């Protein structure tokens, strides 16, 4: 009898319908922006992604940027960006803060997939603190990956590079 019950339990896991994965919201974008700017969020601005900038972003992401403009928030030499990039099949909403050409913070705000969510932890995202671009558009450091989360790691690394590039463009007067 116990064997039968165990068999039923095992089979129920095998035939159980897959979980409908809901978005994991780790931090609301508004809260992220408030933290980035000490509680007083500046008015948003838009940066048009055209010409050479568009080509550079496409080179970083491996595909064309999914829009003609991007929104950002700026106070002094600090900018904040909320960007999305697909990990495996769904986008990862990420908040990035750049100041003085260095990444202050990278935070996973919303994660939508069933695997790779380990990238949202501080032990991974802290690697990006202080990162900058060198040799054109590469990060000045290597980012340790996470087994089973390679696509998410790559997505966040590319977003870090993109945010630094966008910040550089804004600081150069392109905003």
């Amino acid at each position: 009898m116990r064997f039968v019950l165990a068999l039923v339990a095992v089979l129920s896991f095998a035939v159980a319908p897959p979980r409908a994965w809901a978005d994991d919201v780790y931090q609301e974008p508004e809260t992220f922006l408030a933290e980035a700017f000490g509680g007083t969020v500046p008015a948003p601005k838009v940066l048009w992604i055209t010409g050479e900038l568009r080509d550079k972003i496409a080179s970083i992401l491996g595909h064309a940027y999914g829009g003609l403009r991007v929104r950002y928030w700026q106070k002094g030499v600090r900018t904040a960006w909320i960007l999305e990039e697909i990990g495996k099949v769904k986008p990862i909403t990420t908040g990035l803060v750049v100041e003085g050409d260095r990444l202050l913070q990278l935070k996973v705000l919303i994660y939508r997939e069933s695997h790779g969510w380990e990238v949202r932890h501080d032990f991974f995202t802290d690697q990006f603190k202080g990162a900058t671009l060198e040799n054109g558009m590469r990060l000045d450091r290597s980012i340790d990956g996470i087994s089973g989360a390679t696509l998410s790691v790559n997505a966040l690394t590319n977003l870090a590079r993109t945010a630094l590039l966008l910040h550089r463009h804004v600081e150069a007067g392109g905003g």
Partner: protein
Amino acid sequence: MAKASRPNNGRASRVYAWHRYLGLAAAILIIIVAVSGVFLNHTERLALDRHTVSQGWLLARYGMVPERPPISFDVDGTWVSWLEGFLYVNGRKSGRMPRPLVGAARAGDLLAAASPDALLLVTAEATPVERLSQAALPGAVAAVGRGPGGALAIRTDRGVFASDADVVAWTPFAGAVVWSRPMPLPAAIEERLMLGYRGEGVPWARVLLDVHSGRILGRWGPYLMDAAAVCLLLLAATGIYNWLKTRR
């Protein structure tokens, strides 16, 4: 040579009986495999890879029939639609929009289409311009419309807001707004939308392959065809055995 007859000794008789039962049991599946295989051998000549399926029930089998019709808004003669996670402009696929459309309106030279958690700015040619996520919106969007002077307005859970000309900033709005309402899509545009939704469509060659392999029957279909193949092997073996036993 004497005509082969049904054996009357024990083992041979049982093998003969098995041969008959296997044949009966697997007949239909073997016929399906044989007929589909013949057609597949002549795929190019019959243009089976160029002709696509149009039968609704078969398209539904391949997940190519949407669960519900598109949600569409007429924006000054330009149709903005939503179907299963994507935005369409005049039937042309534009950007990703996981949640259903709640409204669409013109925003200067652009079109603004909103779901509860996002607002997409697109061109009339369906090119995505910007995706405004929750951080850029004053609340969950319930409706989209236009105020006096053509200002883009949205109704959210925090009130009614109007955007500036560039759709960068939102301010509370108390004036009259004409809210957009969903309307049936014209047939020609719906046809174009469905073409975009289905992509290339399903060629008959693909259907025949799935029939031949059993995949058309779902997860267990291939195993059923495997069983038919095993039956065919056993039929061959028992047939040869019977022939050897009964020939004189």
